[in-house]
């Protein structure tokens, strides 16, 4: 069967439009209308917007605080994790899900009583594309993404995040925005009523 092709005539200008430059005048009307509108920019270093809760910013590790999902309860028996430490179980699922797996540097070891302990969890964020697949893969709801987007650093080593600062970031994130309904975006009024203006840096 032949492909049906529909030809559409290009709308031609009428003589009135052509002589009096009607479309020029219409366009200039739009620009002058915009000229008198308020600017919509954010004066960035002085004024910072709060991203929505689903924002995919710098990664963080949730800690063991009694709010773990049931899957963690199963694995907990085999792990050497104290209260307030990262609840990472070293399953490497995040690395498996990652499109750029070499950005992870995860090392686990066996303690003397036969339990598993995560001794290193580094992420080189220079290679990260912030797709969020690692957070979806995490079976114990440990690896999350926060609303922090200021990741610049003076040297490359500064962009590598480690387990200690990731746990701190998650605690900070949960205290700030833990009670917030899971929505894509929240209008300004409600946003400022909920958590106000945040000064991160």
């Amino acid at each position, binding site marked *: 069967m032949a492909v049906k092709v529909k030809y559409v005539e290009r709308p031609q200008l009428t003589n009135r439009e052509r002589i009096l430059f009607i479309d*020029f005048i219409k*366009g*200039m009307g*739009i*620009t*002058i209308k*915009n*000229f008198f*509108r*308020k*600017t*919509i*920019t954010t*004066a960035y270093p002085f004024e910072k917007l709060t991203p929505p809760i689903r924002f995919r910013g710098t990664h963080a590790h949730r800690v063991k605080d009694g709010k773990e999902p049931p899957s963690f309860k199963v694995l907990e028996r085999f792990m050497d994790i104290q209260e307030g430490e990262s609840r990472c179980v070293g399953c490497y699922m995040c690395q498996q899900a990652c499109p750029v797996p070499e950005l992870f540097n995860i090392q686990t070891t066996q303690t003397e009583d036969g339990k598993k302990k995560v001794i290193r969890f580094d992420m080189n964020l220079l290679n990260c594309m912030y797709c969020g697949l690692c957070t979806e893969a995490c079976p114990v709801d440990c690896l999350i993404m926060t609303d922090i987007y200021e990741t610049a650093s003076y040297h490359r080593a500064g962009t590598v995040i480690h387990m200690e600062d990731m746990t701190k970031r998650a605690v900070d994130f949960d205290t700030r925005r833990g009670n917030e309904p899971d929505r894509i975006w929240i209008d300004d009024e409600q946003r400022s009523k909920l958590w106000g203006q945040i000064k991160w840096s």
Partner: protein
Amino acid sequence: MDLLGTAIFLAIKSLIFIMGMFLGAAYLTLLERKFAGHVQQRPGPLHVGPHGFLQPIADALKVLTKEDLVPDNVDKVLFYLASLMAFVPAIMILAVVPFGEPFTIFGIEIQPYISDLNVGLLLALAFGSISIYGVIFAGWASNSKYPMIGGLRKAAVLIGYEVALGFALAGPIMMAGSFSLREIVEAQQGMWFIIPNILAFVVVVFCVLAETGRTPFDVQEAEAELVGGYVTEYTGMKFGLFPLAEWYIATFVLSAITVILFFGGWQPLPLLGWLPIPEFLWFFIKVFLLFMFFLWVHWTLPRYRVDQITEMAWKVMLPLALANILIVAVWIIIFG
């Protein structure tokens, strides 16, 4: 001795005009950036000084202290000459632009113009045409394909619009009976020349946009297709002179000439003659309004193709200019 005095006096006056134009052009950049910003709903320069008021000075310092690279394979003489060639004639047009009637302060008669040539308009046209060579030389001397294309495009555009501009200026000259810009203004005491010359004004607006490379006709730099057009190989102050000459000084000076030809120069706006505003201020108000109109057009319209531009020059603008000459001739026969 008398000759020496005149020479020194003229030199000082020229220097004042040139410095004024430099400072004016610097602040016209700020004006344009603010205007462009607000058209796009952003504030423009904001942080250097109150509301970015000192931004032009910071820009000038930056451009002057930048490294000035000259590529290896360029034609050195033309490469250096081109930026001056674009800049100097544009500012030379100021020599014949009158800013008002001669007036007297402290018993000294001051003429707010450098010279009142009886062929002032011809000289302005000639300098306007010479400054085009800067762009064409820049394109040729850079020894690179994008500048070359930009320069050739500018040449193609300008061949058409210089002809139309020359014919369009014939109307006011016929009505005033003089090439002197001051006498043209004096001839507009009763009625501005815009009345019978409306077609010529349309042509002149398009020609000014084409000559200064503002948007509907900015094919010679066309940043999306030609990198930067003829300025691609330029750096530092040599680069800075091109936009300064084309976008600011040339636009300002050509706006001034358009105001002189069609809007009665330094004569007050109709119905506002009772306001206590001096003559040269009226002139600057009109030039400012026209300049803002050009900015407005620039930041509204997208770019024409080169073939559309040349087609419009030869098929629309030239016949319009010729029709204007006919209308003005009939007008002069009927009304004297």
